[in-house]
């Protein structure tokens, strides 16, 4: 597949995933760019589906940015202009609906592993097998993380009024 075609097909999914993971439009833009640059430079060997391959790269880049952020906190002698703060800026589309905003903010409060499982399994509705391949986890680990993530999300949102019991039943 040509790069242009690939970019056209996967841009939105990758940008959305990164945006939900970092919650900063400018950082999401940089990381999306980095993802597609790596896709361009890398050698895809048809060992996985192309979508899985690109998602894996995006995930690695997001985690790299988390690590960098954690490291920068500990760096001494850093000049103020060199510090990169992440700015929580919800997308306009998200704040247009109160329900979306609440849900989005609740997802942002989840720890990264829970957040990504919720994004892959519940938002993007990837299959269990695809999620396992992207994360490099076993099926059991993905299922357990998904259950715990939904429980945590329910707790943040306040109880089972959002149909958590039904949702978890479906996952099991």
């Amino acid at each position, binding site marked *: 597949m040509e790069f242009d075609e690939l970019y056209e097909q996967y841009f939105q999914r990758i940008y959305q995933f990164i945006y939900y993971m970092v919650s900063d439009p400018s950082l999401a833009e940089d990381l999306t760019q980095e993802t597609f640059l790596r896709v361009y430079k890398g050698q895809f060997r048809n060992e996985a589906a192309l979508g899985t391959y690109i998602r894996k790269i995006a995930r690695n880049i997001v985690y790299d940015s988390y690590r960098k952020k954690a490291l920068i906190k500990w760096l001494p002698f850093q000049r103020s202009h060199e510090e990169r703060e992440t700015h929580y800026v919800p997308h306009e589309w998200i704040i247009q609906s109160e329900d979306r905003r609440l849900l989005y903010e609740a997802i942002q409060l989840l720890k990264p592993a829970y957040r990504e499982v919720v994004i892959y399994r519940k938002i993007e*509705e990837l299959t269990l097998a695809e999620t396992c391949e992207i994360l490099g986890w076993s099926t059991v680990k993905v299922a357990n993380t998904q259950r715990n993530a939904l429980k945590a999300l329910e707790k943040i949102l306040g109880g089972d009024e959002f149909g958590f019991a039904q949702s978890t039943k479906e996952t099991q």
Partner: protein
Amino acid sequence: MDLHNRLKKLNNLPEDQAVKSRIYERIQHKKKKGLTIWKEGVLLLTMAVIALFLILLPQNSSLPQSANQSIQTIYKYFGGKEGKFFARGSDLYTSVEKVNDRKIYNFFQDLTHYVEEGDGRLGDYVTDVVVVRDHREEHYQISDTGMLNIDSGQFFVGTSDMYDEVFQILYSVNTKPWFLILPLVVIIVNLFSASYYKRRKLDNYKPPKPKWWLLLLFLSVTFGIFAWATWVGPLYKPLMLMLAVFYGVIIWYNLKRDIQHYAIYKVETIKISIVTVALVFVIMTY
């Protein structure tokens, strides 16, 4: 509406065309600039500059031992052969040693006291010697039967006890068992990595095998090195160090592109670093 359906709706984040085209343009711009190779290019250029610096470094930089002594340094190469002169005027070459014995300096200060010009051939036991006198190199081969001035072709017969003593000192082997460390290090790092992969259940993600051209390159370079050492002369250590580091970088670069698991990448990087450091150490001490 249940949580499942509500989450599903978050999948419809509208596509931002401005962001999409901005990123696309930046990627196109970077593609044109050849971003894929600039890091590797800088690395290779740095290595080449360091190599050039080391090659151009003056070799006879040792200072006179005293103000009135004309011999600056003496170097020896153990195990020479008649007709082949292997010693070099610098200990930056493998197997070339700087001689520190005062007797040797006294001997070469004025040879006429200890040897006589004559006819003859070198014996079976030969050591090559380079005497740096007034910043100029003189080349000798000293053997059990006599010594040869390579530059003038004059043969000298040893006529004194001093000659025998000097020959014994120059023909002594200074054993350097440090090269044994290399196979030992290779075995140890491989054992550690194998046990780590087993413990972490990473056996299925074995690192890719080296490519055929990489093996060919390695074998050709190794053959070239041995051929040079056998027929041409000692190897220049800085160049050998560059080759060792360059080889480590090539192996690491190839593994980096093929490895699919981060833990394996880390372990393999550490392995290559340790083996390269051991190789550098062996070259420096050889």
